């Protein structure tokens, strides 16, 4: 094998599976539903995303699920821009789950912005063209003589105008233009895109209005809690459902059998009550007995010991990336740098615990109110589980109290469907306790790496070897435990050997914000910092050497549309900007030190510098983070964009400092926020963000700012103490 690019079938499939298998890789976006001519006086639907009422109210459909990433505000901004709407007249409504009408609806992979940028512009421009066509017909003038101003069509010569509301019903009868024929706005003329606009739902949120999935209230609704084994892979032997039924407030209790797919439904017992607190309390009466099989012996310590054994054993089971002659590079190296890195399992813990509401209707339809990042995938899973066609499942998309990748998996949707189908006509709201959430997540995979670099007599890094120990997730098509063979810097190494061993496990794993990258950035950027240190330079200098002479990779047709390949110029630009912002290279005084980290993920380039010190008790204190990011030529909503970056940085610092999920006896040891301690206000650093604009379409911001902050922090700690952090979370006893 001479080239590094041998992606496994499973990782190639990962994007389609991320959406729950609900759509194909090359899913096309329906720009418009055929416009329906409106009744006089009624709102007219011009495209699937734009409806205009006679009173000039413009309703724009928020296409993708809102998890706090701001997409319910930002995608309609794009539509409104090309529609030339008056933003004050815009109302946003959340879409129903409907692949045929709206195209792929998902919140994941920072996909929403790159995937929808052009279709949302086109749907807005389509509606605008139809409004102009309507005015041309009404006034008997050529289309070319007309233009628009916010909310109205204007005849350029005479200045006469008609509002969108006046024209909408006629516009709905106009032919839908070919998307290719549309003229889109020049970026310089944007009035709405680029404006800092507050979250569309924020006024409701500050007033405490019902808006999240768990706020769903239906007449006659009952509440369900679900008891399942804390040991992954276990099956249910018995449970005392009668004892649970005898508890106060309990309406029913029954055993639910898993469907054989742990990503959907595992064995458990449903307890139903008039109030969730009563249902949850009654779980203690169940005294379930589980068959844990072989899995109860599994532990984090066991995995770590096995990983070390495999790495010490030399040759790994599988080579997944190879180029040049790594053995030769090592044999002729003037210096060899080697180190072991590892990182733990992590949980997602969004603030709104998992929940879902379902009603088995008399007409055989399962109607659901689902906080899901992949509602189309959830709909498909529920239909398959129930053995009904997809038309028999309706999924209303609710706002979510956070996602972070947890709600890409829809196990709670299948779980509540399994309960609600036993209670036709009664709406059921399933809620998980925080303990359920921490103990039965789809975890960020732990991993172990033994890295080796060869350096020649001139101090140039000539090769990289990584012996990676990860997990075999069976046939799971989306495998966040895999490492792509073109991970930076592997793709630019003349000599490369990437090999891996896989451990068997029943621990469920999934995508946590910036999947793969959130771990690999720490490993690769920390190790490169070691190589830089060993060769008497700093990490930014080493990165510049590594990309020296590298050409931009070509644009390919990816999941989200045309996707530019890795561009070394963008790496250079963000690196330069972040180091300038932080005065990198100048001496740092007062017991503080700086560290640098860079990463490219989800199409975004981020370079970050972290300033740290240690308290007298060796507590890590982060003072400043300087961040330069390149996500293309346009920030759609500066408010939301900055919020994502600030949040991602604090999230990453929190992971590095204090988060780990540990497995003991086949189950998760942590249970709630006392032993899974999320960042709190006092640890918030000053965060300075600047955008580096490049000539690329805008891409997503939910994820790419997170990965580099972790190595920037650990590299800063090395600069401060001379002690290298090679395992997360950071063990401060290193600095004692």
């Amino acid at each position, binding site marked *: 094998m001479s080239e590094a690019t041998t992606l496994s079938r499973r990782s190639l499939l990962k994007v389609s599976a991320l959406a729950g298998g609900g759509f194909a890789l090359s899913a096309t976006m329906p720009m418009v539903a055929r416009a329906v001519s409106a009744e006089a006086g009624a709102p007219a639907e011009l495209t699937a995303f734009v409806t205009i009422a006679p009173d000039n109210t413009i309703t724009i459909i928020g296409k993708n699920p809102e998890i*706090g990433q701001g997409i319910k505000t930002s995608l309609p901004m794009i539509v409104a821009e090309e529609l030339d709407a008056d933003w004050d007249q815009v109302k946003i409504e959340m879409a129903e789950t409907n692949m045929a009408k709206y195209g792929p609806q998902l919140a994941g992979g920072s996909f929403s912005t790159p995937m929808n940028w052009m279709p949302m512009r086109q749907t807005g421009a389509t509606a605008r063209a139809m409004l102009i066509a309507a005015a041309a017909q009404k006034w008997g003038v050529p289309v070319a003589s007309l233009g628009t101003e916010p909310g109205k069509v204007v005849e350029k010569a005479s200045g006469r105008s008609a509002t969108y509301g006046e024209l909408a019903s006629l516009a709905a009868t106009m032919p839908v233009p070919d998307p290719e024929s549309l003229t889109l706005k020049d970026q310089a003329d944007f009035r709405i895109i680029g404006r800092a606009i507050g979250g569309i739902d924020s006024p409701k949120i500050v007033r405490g209005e019902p808006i999240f999935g768990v706020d769903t209230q239906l007449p006659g609704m009952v509440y369900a809690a679900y008891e399942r084994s804390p040991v992954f892979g276990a099956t249910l032997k018995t449970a005392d459902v009668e004892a649970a039924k005898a508890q106060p407030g309990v309406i029913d209790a029954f055993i639910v059998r898993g469907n054989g797919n742990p990503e959907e439904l595992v064995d458990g017992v449903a307890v139903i009550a008039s109030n969730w607190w009563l249902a949850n309390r009654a779980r203690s009466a169940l005294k379930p007995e589980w068959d844990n099989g072989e899995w109860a012996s599994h532990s984090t310590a066991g995995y770590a010991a096995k990983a070390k054994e495999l790495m010490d054993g030399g040759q790994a089971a599988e080579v997944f990336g190879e180029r040049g002659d790594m053995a030769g590079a090592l044999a002729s190296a003037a210096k060899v740098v080697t180190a072991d890195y590892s990182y733990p399992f992590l949980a997602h813990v969004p603030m709104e615990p998992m929940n879902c509401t379902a009603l088995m209707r008399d007409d055989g339809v399962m109607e659901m109110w689902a906080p899901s990042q992949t509602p189309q995938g959830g709909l498909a899973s529920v239909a398959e589980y129930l053995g009904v066609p997809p038309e028999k499942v309706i999924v209303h998309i609710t706002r979510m109290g956070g996602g972070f990748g947890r709600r890409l998996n829809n196990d709670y949707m299948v779980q509540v469907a399994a309960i609600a189908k036993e209670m036709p006509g009664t709406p059921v709201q399933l809620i998980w306790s925080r303990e359920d959430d921490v103990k039965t997540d789809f975890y960020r995979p732990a991993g172990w790496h033994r890295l080796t670099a060869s350096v020649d007599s001139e101090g140039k890094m000539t090769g990289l070897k990584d012996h990676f120990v990860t997990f075999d997730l069976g046939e799971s098509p989306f495998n966040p435990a895999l490492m792509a063979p073109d991970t930076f810097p592997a793709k630019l190494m003349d000599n490369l050997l990437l090999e891996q061993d896989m451990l068997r496990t029943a621990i469920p794993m999934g995508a946590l914000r910036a999947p793969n990258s959130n771990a690999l950035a720490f490993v690769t950027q920390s190790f490169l910092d070691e190589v830089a240190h060993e060769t008497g330079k700093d990490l930014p200098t080493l990165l510049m050497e590594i990309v020296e002479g590298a050409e931009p990779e070509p644009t390919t047709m990816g999941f989200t549309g045309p996707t530019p390949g890795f561009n070394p110029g963008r790496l250079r630009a963000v690196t330069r900007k972040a180091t300038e912002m932080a005065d990198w290279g100048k001496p740092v005084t007062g017991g503080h030190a700086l560290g640098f980290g860079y990463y490219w993920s989800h199409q975004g380039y981020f370079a970050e510098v972290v300033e740290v010190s240690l308290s007298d008790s060796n507590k890590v204190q982060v003072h400043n983070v300087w961040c330069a990011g390149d996500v293309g030529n346009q920030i759609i909503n500066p408010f939301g964009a900055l919020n994502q970056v600030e949040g991602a940085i604090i999230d990453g610092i929190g992971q590095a400092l204090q988060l780990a999920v540990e497995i003991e006896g086949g189950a998760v040891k942590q249970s709630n926020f006392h032993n899974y301690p999320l960042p709190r206000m006092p640890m918030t650093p000053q965060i300075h963000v600047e955008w580096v604009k490049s000539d690329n379409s805008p891409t997503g911001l939910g994820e790419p700012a997170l990965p580099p902050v972790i190595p920037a922090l650990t590299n800063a700690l090395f600069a401060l103490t001379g002690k290298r952090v090679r395992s997360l979370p950071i063990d401060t006893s290193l600095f004692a």
Partner: protein
Amino acid sequence: MAITVTINNETREIDAPGDMPLLWALRQELGMVGTKFGCGIGMCGACTVHLDGQAVRSCSLPLSAIGDKKVSTVEHLAQSEVGQALQQAWLDEDVMQCGYCQAGQLMSATALLNSNATPSDDEIDAAMQGNICRCACYKRIKTAIAQVSRNEETANV
């Protein structure tokens, strides 16, 4: 046996066991879902309400322990000047991402400013550290509180 509780200046009869936490009575007995469930053990602050003006965690407050004390929730926040000012500052600063914890954040912030109109940076940290924001909007929460507190300072001059 019904329990009588004063919530947002209204007397409410709740037919629930005395050991039921106030949170679950608010959300599912009274249909007031502004107060949020986050952890159930008083560690995250999403369920924060005021009890005689003090910020308390309603997930850990049994109905039977309330007695004559007055409960106030996020649904009532706009009735106070400070609460309303904070709500507006939250919007002006575009504080939130997912927004789920923000009712609790606002209740804690209101209790803080009601007892200390011009808190220092450290005092804000201390008063707010019981409230987790998983999206980590801390910088903006702090700015919004400081904004209202500065206005207060100016008004007093």
